[in-house]
């Protein structure tokens, strides 16, 4: 018993180290004076100061947030509607449709990105932020459907029946009864979608018009030109933002279901 306990704890510690050591190293180095990663670390905020003057990173960040915001709004709206449709209606090929929602999670992004690029050119959408928004909606939609559906599982459909028996129309029932009840799920789904979009590199890389990029693409380009601790600094900021988002999600969405 003691042996098992001890092994379990070691295992847990190893996993956490594996996950967080690289990140902690990066965060530490972002505060290091030396450009060549010389140790020991000399405390400095010069790379963060350098960020303040990097207009390329600024516009890339703005683009990232814009794309994430727009794609989140769209995919949350569409995904919630999809989850509601799956919940309310029984129709032929529903099962098939439910499965068809998920490929963006399983198909390699490289392939999806290529497919989107080819398709967007073919139909005349082309590249640019608008194309990225569409691409990110397609990617985050399944996450929204999963999260909202999970919340709907514990929804008592008698609530909708009750609203209708009291004279509420379809839309009144949805907006006044169902959606308020779903709100924690919808917020969690939106935060998920926002994170998916913010983190997305490949699709954005494929769909970026020359000179108009998102933050991950800009970081990648910068690394290719020569790695500076400035990248560590911006990455640290992104990590903090992502962690805050995650905290937000876990506030509204219980991982691993209900107790």
């Amino acid at each position, binding site marked *: 018993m003691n042996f098992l306990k001890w092994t379990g704890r070691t295992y847990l510690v190893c996993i956490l180290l594996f996950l967080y050591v690289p990140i902690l190293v990066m965060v530490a180095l972002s505060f290091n004076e030396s450009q060549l990663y010389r140790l020991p670390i000399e405390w400095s905020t010069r790379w963060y100061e350098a960020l303040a003057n990097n207009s390329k990173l600024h516009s890339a960040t703005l683009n990232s947030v814009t794309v994430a915001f727009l794609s989140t709004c769209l995919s949350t709206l569409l995904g919630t509607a999809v989850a509601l449709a799956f919940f309310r209606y029984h129709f032929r090929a529903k099962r098939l449709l439910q499965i068809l929602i998920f490929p963006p999670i399983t198909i390699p992004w490289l392939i999806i990105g290529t497919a989107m690029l080819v398709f967007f050119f073919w139909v005349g959408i082309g590249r640019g932020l608008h194309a990225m928004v569409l691409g990110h909606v397609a990617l985050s939609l399944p996450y929204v459907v999963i999260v909202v559906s999970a919340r709907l599982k514990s929804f*008592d459909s*008698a*609530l909708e*029946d*009750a*609203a*209708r*028996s*009291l*004279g*509420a*129309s379809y839309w*009144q029932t949805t907006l*006044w*009864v169902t959606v*308020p*009840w779903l709100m924690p799920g919808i917020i969690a789904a939106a935060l998920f979608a926002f994170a998916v979009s913010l983190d997305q590199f490949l699709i954005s890389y494929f769909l970026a018009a020359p000179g108009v990029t998102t933050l991950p693409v800009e970081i990648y380009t910068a690394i290719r030109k020569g790695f500076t601790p400035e990248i560590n600094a911006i990455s640290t900021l992104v990590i903090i933002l992502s962690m805050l988002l995650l905290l937000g999600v876990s506030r509204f969405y219980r991982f691993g279901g209900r107790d």
Partner: protein
Amino acid sequence: MASVSVQNLSKKFGSTVALDQVSFEFEDGKFFALLGPSGSGKTTLLRMIAGFENPDQGSIQIDGKVVDHIPVEKRDIGMVFQSYALFPNMDVQANVGFGLRVRGISASETKRLVGEALELVRLSGFDDRRPHQLSGGQRQRVALARAIVTKPRVLLLDEPLSALDRTLRLEMEIELKRIQRDVGITTIFVTHDQEEALTMSDQIGILNEGQLVQHGSPVDIYENPQSVFVARFLGEANLLKGQVDGSSVNLEVGGTIQTRSKPASPLVICSIRPEKISIHKEKNIAPSSSNQIAGRVNEHIFNGTSLTYLVQCGDQVVRVFVQNLSGELIAPNTPVHLSFRPEDTLVFPDA
């Protein structure tokens, strides 16, 4: 307030028949119970009257007008659900006022009507509580207030008391009946609890396997069941098999008895309610016109006001209810004689 009439309603879910040619008249202002075991179609019938399900065949009229193509929200019904279905994101005031809000009634008028409804269910002062802050009985009252505040034509209740404990249920039965009488609304109540049906309703309809097997007043159905199923489902019944011999019946458990009506088939089942049987230690104490069978006391159950004897007659156990008049119990293993009147001995063909 309105009458409801259903004609030849049939409904199948896949290959299972939920309702089979059900016709019934629910008169204006009366309290009806739809009673049946689970899967008998009673909830389907209620949901059909509400408009949640469409019949495959047949037609529903409210107040003499066909409502088959009118959706739930336009049918002007009030419904109380088994789970109460109170809106968790709204307080009591908003829950009860929901039906008024969707009808576009002014805030001040809504407040007045909600106040009246809450007073009727004796929940004044609970306006800003949330559903999760209420007890089961209080939620039930809110659900009822919400259903009647819009003054619907019909009130539909789907097993509304089944989630309450026994004491609360008995209290709510009386409350519900009082409110129904005060408001005078046509009420249709679905239940699987025969006691609820007997105590509360003016009329009972008994459903089994999608068919309306009998309907009538509680007393009428209890005293004159038309089938073994109804005799057994509404109240308790001792069922004794026998063979017809002329105008009397030879029971398998021993004894020859007279029945209320002439037996119509050679093999019959006789049904006698436990409270219509008297139990004696001596023979011939009962009038000679009574039916008599012999047995031996297996066990007695003392309930205070009454006694239940389980009497072994042949290979069958007969239940007997006696009022506790003398305070004396007949000990187990005592040989006894059971007597009951021919009028109380119902006879059904043994299928």
